[in-house]
């Protein structure tokens, strides 16, 4: 009888330790999940900033000013443009 009790007590202790271990892992994973979520948000925001930057650099007004002032380009007048067999994009 006492042997069975001993065994049960040992099993109980083992289970308790496993539970502690599992809980510890769960918490660690949860912290990691939160960190990654935060990182995702940061990356998302960075992406938005890069989009903003890209469209600022590539803005038509800026490109046109640069083309005119730095490269000396001009817009051809309409009668100097000819469309050849155009196809819809």
């Amino acid at each position, binding site marked *: 009888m006492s042997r069975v009790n001993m065994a049960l007590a040992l099993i109980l202790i083992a289970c308790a330790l496993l539970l502690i271990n599992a809980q510890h892992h*769960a*918490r660690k994973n*949860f*912290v990691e999940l*939160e960190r990654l979520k935060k990182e995702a948000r940061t990356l*998302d*925001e960075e992406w*938005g*900033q890069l*989009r*903003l930057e890209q*469209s*600022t650099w590539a*803005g*038509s*007004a*800026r490109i*046109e*000013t*640069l083309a*005119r*002032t730095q490269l000396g380009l*001009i*817009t051809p*007048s*309409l*009668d100097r*443009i*000819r*469309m050849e*067999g*155009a*196809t*819809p*994009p």
Partner: protein
Amino acid sequence: MNYHSKKLLKLHLAPWRMATVGGLIMVGLATVGGRAFYLQSLHTDYLQGKGNAVANRSLTLPAHRGMVSDRNGEPLAISTPVESLWARTAEIKYSRAELNRLADILGMAPDKLKLRLQTRKKGELSVQRPLTPDQAARVAAMGMPGLSLRREYRRYYPAADVAAHVVGFTNVDDLGQEGVERAFQDWLAGKSGERHVLRDRRGNMIRDLEPVKIAQMGGNLALSLDMRIQYLAHRELAAAVTANQAKGGGIVVIDAKTGEILALSNLPVFNPNNRRNYDPQRVRNRAVIDTFEPGSTMKPFTAAAVLERGLFTPQTMINTSDGLIVGNKRIRDEHPHPFLTVTEVIQKSSNIGAVKMAMTLTPEQFCDTLHRAGFGQKPGSGFPGEASGHLRNAKTLKPVEQATMAYGHGISVSLLQLARAYMAFANDGEVAPLSFLRREPQEVVGERVFSPQVARSVRSMMETVTHEGGTAVRAQVPGYRVAGKTGTAHKLIDGQYSADRYIASFVGMAPASDPRFIVAVMIDEPSAGAYFGGSVAGPVFAQVMAGALRSFGLPPDAPLDAPRITQPTLPNPIQTNKAEAIKRGRAA
């Protein structure tokens, strides 16, 4: 064992000592017990609350405002986080060296910064907003007590003034104030969520205490605008307004097949990124909100009204030699011609011809046609505050009013409404509902206004407008057939027609064989000499239409050997006003 039985261990104690010690122990026990009872059962709510305040946190999950983009995904409005610097005045402490360093980071004079930090005795004040990411990192590294960084979302408009009137803007609380930002506020804003979490000593979140209420992120919005055409329209309009020393102007480009608004621009305009010099007059989207008397651009509708009832054919001759008197008003032509066919009435924009056609109709018939074309009703774009214009009631219409309406006076329209009405001619009699959002072609259900025959014959009349002898030779686009109509209207000022102030307009479509685009241009008070719709608004139309046709890659439909009239193009904006153009480039 019995101690009392052993003589040596027998202790003689006074009974009062026993009582005192025992009593003291009991009192101590009672105190501890009472305190425990007090904390556990009477004071528990307060303590539990304190404990929860340390470990439990309820967090609001902010919803990100959605992005607005054009039809090709080019961003027009983006929210991006910025750090701003706040100071709690009571806690702030700094040495002279720290002050200098902070001032250096912020790019302020140290004295000015000191003054700023002392402006308030209590509470918090914002030191600077927004900071650049680099500034924020350096301020955080200093770790000065009392200073804190706060994360805010700021909305940026990369297209700046080019698409300002359509996109609109938001206020400091991220609420849409104008334009699409206001019209689609609910969709863009999203809903913030909430979660309750348990935190450990270091402030890490350990687990959720309640199911998370997920934040509903604001939806993105793809507008119908095409930034290539929008930029072109904006640039050409600005160039024409400058060249003609006009007070303002507007331009609308519509996809004739789907009713999508591809470009819409007004002058004067504002920069939504910089609202320091906010002027409500500049923020008005005139093309949608304001109305004007259209003038001759109404004549095609007069022609359609008589054609669809079989009263005239395009070849019917009309005597336009003598002046015509209706009521007590004398109708005149700017350039008199003795006889004109219906086609030539449109081509040469004869007022007498238009009035003679309109007077063959009853007021009900005439107003019915105009009503069907959408005049006097909201064009239905969903834009906040859009104007419906004014159409007189047929029952009380006097003959003189009917006569003036035939050439576009005594009726008011918005530019958007006018462009929409021309869709009936462009789309073989069907008008698709307008939209500021990108839509798929199969979604469109049109509304029939004219029969296909009437629409086509009016369209071919309007084609002659851009031919030799028409009023808008300068609206030609090389390689394409163009149909359109000019308008030159005296401006109504305080109920009187001004003798020398005009509104010049041109509404046209191309390729005329199967129109894809409608471009409506309006120039308000051109005052550099020219004031006719054909010479002021026509060239803007030609430039924008040519660009639109090119960027959509539509094949030319004009015969190759078509007689070509050399096109005098507008001077480049940079040559007429170099400083302005450079400034625009820099601002963007």
